[in-house]
């Protein structure tokens, strides 16, 4: 997928001004996943869920601590059960491996279930260029494929679209009478997709987890499409990141409890599919060939570094659901595959710090993401750490760096600080006029465009007022004094 992350600011401005998008987001924010998650956590027991989060984080850390060993174990177990395991170092290599499989098996049509890695690697474009027809079968992804748009949420990809927009799209693309009843629209999409399911040569799925001890891939879905993609066509390819490997099935059970509750508030998703090798001699269905393409694409560069905790991510979307910035500007503003807090860490990590300068900055570090994260990724700390890397690599404006240096230096010299703050307070108070509200702040137009800046309430700083008090009061040994007279 083409990286647009350098254009966060204009894209966000566009999103803020897009009334349809704002009303779609509004609906998501008020009736969406956060409320469902909160309910699920309460039902599970908040304390128990906290404990589970700790266990989830520990499981992911155990896998990541010996990533190479677990991947080898996965490879040997999966191979022993008849699957092929391929490794791709880059996104391009992932595409090449898939195209090679398509050529070898004479694939003309590939049906797909949701895979974010497929978005990372630009699989659809690669397939089309090679003459293979990719068909998205997750309803949201299908809508977006028709619309020619990228996903705006990792588990609800078409979140930015409303029913009427989809109705228009279906009418134009399905050449059928316009429908606005959601079950009828879904049925229409199912009818179109049914033919593709039956005629496809290859099924491409993502993978939520890779279980090392059994060599199984896992997908956690709510639509039946994932099961058809992984069982109907002759060839099934599971495309996912190398960091998805976990040691045991027991670990998977723990992570599943966390994943669905964190994502959609469900105790379990409608479908949980484990695929272990191709169709066996006694199996009545399943693919003849089962291939895993496990992609690095920047992941190993995070291992052992200060971003390693990010690799715990199980792609539930809770961080973006809870992110007030995401909730205001939507997923497309972030400009690449992964939006929200996890995207603001992953995008600069995978496509280069210099190609996503705004993302680590465009967060208030409010921490709503990290308290919702099922595997306790300290997202605000990681964002702050990326900001530090930007400073170290000279990627912040010189003006900004100078401002912090000057502030720090002045604040380390209390007398100078007193002079500077006394002047600033007077200036701001003058600017505030009679109502104490500043409408235009020098060097602060970003603030005053949408808000007033309330002026200081006093002509003097606290330090000056405190120092001016009688010595008796300043010594204050247990005296109780009313200071309301100090309010000016």
């Amino acid at each position, binding site marked *: 997928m083409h990286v647009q992350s350098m254009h966060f600011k204009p894209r*966000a*401005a566009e999103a*803020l001004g897009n009334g349809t998008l704002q009303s779609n987001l509004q609906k998501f924010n008020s009736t969406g996943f956060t409320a469902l998650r909160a309910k699920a956590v309460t039902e599970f027991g908040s304390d128990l869920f906290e404990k589970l989060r700790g266990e989830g984080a520990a499981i992911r850390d155990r896998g990541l601590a010996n990533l190479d060993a677990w991947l080898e174990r996965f490879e040997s177990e999966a191979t022993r059960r008849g699957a092929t395991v391929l490794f791709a170092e880059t996104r391009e290599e992932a595409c090449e491996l898939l195209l090679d499989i398509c050529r070898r098996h004479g694939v003309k049509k590939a049906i797909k279930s949701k895979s974010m890695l497929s978005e990372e690697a630009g699989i659809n474009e690669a397939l089309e260029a090679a003459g293979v027809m990719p068909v998205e079968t997750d309803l949201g992804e299908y809508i977006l494929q028709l619309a020619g748009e990228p996903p705006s949420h990792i588990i609800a990809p078409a979140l930015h679209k409303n029913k009427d927009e989809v109705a228009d799209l279906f009418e134009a693309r399905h050449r059928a009478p316009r429908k606005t009843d959601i079950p009828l629209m879904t049925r229409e999409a199912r009818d179109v997709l049914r033919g593709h399911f039956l005629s496809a040569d290859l099924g491409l799925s993502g993978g939520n987890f890779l279980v090392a001890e059994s060599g199984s891939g896992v997908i956690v879905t709510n639509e039946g499409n994932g099961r058809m993609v992984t069982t109907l066509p002759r060839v099934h390819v599971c495309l996912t990141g190398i960091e998805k490997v976990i040691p045991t099935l027991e670990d998977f059970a723990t992570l599943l409890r966390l994943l669905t509750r964190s994502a959609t508030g469900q105790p379990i998703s409608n479908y949980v599919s484990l695929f272990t090798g191709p169709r066996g001699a006694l199996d009545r269905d399943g693919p003849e060939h089962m291939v895993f393409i496990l992609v690095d694409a920047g992941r190993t560069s995070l291992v052992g570094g200060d971003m390693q905790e990010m690799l715990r991510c199980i792609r539930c979307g809770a961080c973006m659901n809870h992110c*007030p*910035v995401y909730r*205001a500007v939507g997923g497309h503003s972030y400009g690449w595959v992964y939006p929200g807090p996890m995207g603001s860490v992953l995008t600069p990590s995978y496509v280069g710090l210099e190609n996503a300068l705004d993302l680590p900055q*465009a*967060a*208030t*570090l*409010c*921490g*709503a993401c*990290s*308290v919702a994260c099922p595997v306790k990724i300290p997202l605000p*700390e990681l964002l*702050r*750490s990326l*900001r530090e*890397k930007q*400073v*170290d690599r000279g990627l*912040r404006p010189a003006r*900004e760096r100078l401002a*912090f*240096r000057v*502030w*720090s*230096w002045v*604040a*380390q010299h*209390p007398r100078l*600080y007193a002079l500077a*703050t006394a002047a600033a307070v007077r200036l701001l108070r003058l600017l505030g006029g009679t109502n104490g*509200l500043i409408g235009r702040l020098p060097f*602060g*137009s*970003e603030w005053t*465009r*949408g*808000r*007033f*800046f*309330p002026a200081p*309430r*006093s002509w*003097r*700083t*606290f*330090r000056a*007022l*405190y120092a001016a008090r009688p010595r008796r009061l*300043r010594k*204050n040994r*247990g*005296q109780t004094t009313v200071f*309301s007279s*100090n*309010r*000016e």
Partner: protein
Amino acid sequence: MRVGLFVTCLVDLMRPSIGFAALKLLEDAGCDVVVPATQTCCGQPGWNSGDRESARGLARKLIAEFEDCAYVVVPSGSCAGMIRVHFPEVFEGDAGMLARAERLGARTYELTDFLAKVAHRPKVSAAFEGAVTYHDSCSGLRELGVKAQPRQLLAKVEGLGLVEMEECETCCGFGGTFSIKYGDISAEMAERKCAHIAASGAKAVVLGDLGCMLNIEGRLRKRGDAKTRVLHVAEVLAGEG
């Protein structure tokens, strides 16, 4: 009990009365309060912007100023969080300063947290007429667990009724330099907060952080609300609301 009051740079500059209200509350609670005259800023702006060096200088200064206090109390969740949670991170790799930072951090409290949990006899003898709603500032809430403490204390204020607004735990959009780097997003977040405040019907929003205070007040007035008051919890508890 020798308690150091760190008023924060924003209170120093913008709202001195909050510093005095905090002082009164601590003294009423029987604390022997010291207010180091040289105090300035905790270094949070630099730290959050990735400028470790500028944060280090200010952190070192603050530690030296308050080290001889049994406790450090701050009328701000984000500055208290900076000292308690982040100072040790600031001095990563500097064992000597790290130990000092950890010792001071463990004794540093947000004002209402201190009054509710540590002060021997927190005394609230204030009155407030009408309904207020409480905005939970992010760092206080999520870094320090400040949630019940201000509400417990506000419950002692005569005449005050607390009505919770929707999404009281959602960020108001301040975020330090975020508010001037991404002004439009920040203002939109503030707008959503203001809408929740208005819907609560409260005549004042009470909170514990200056950044949120300026942001929310600035947006309330911009959207034409001249009436809803924005008050620091210290002012209300000290009877200065």
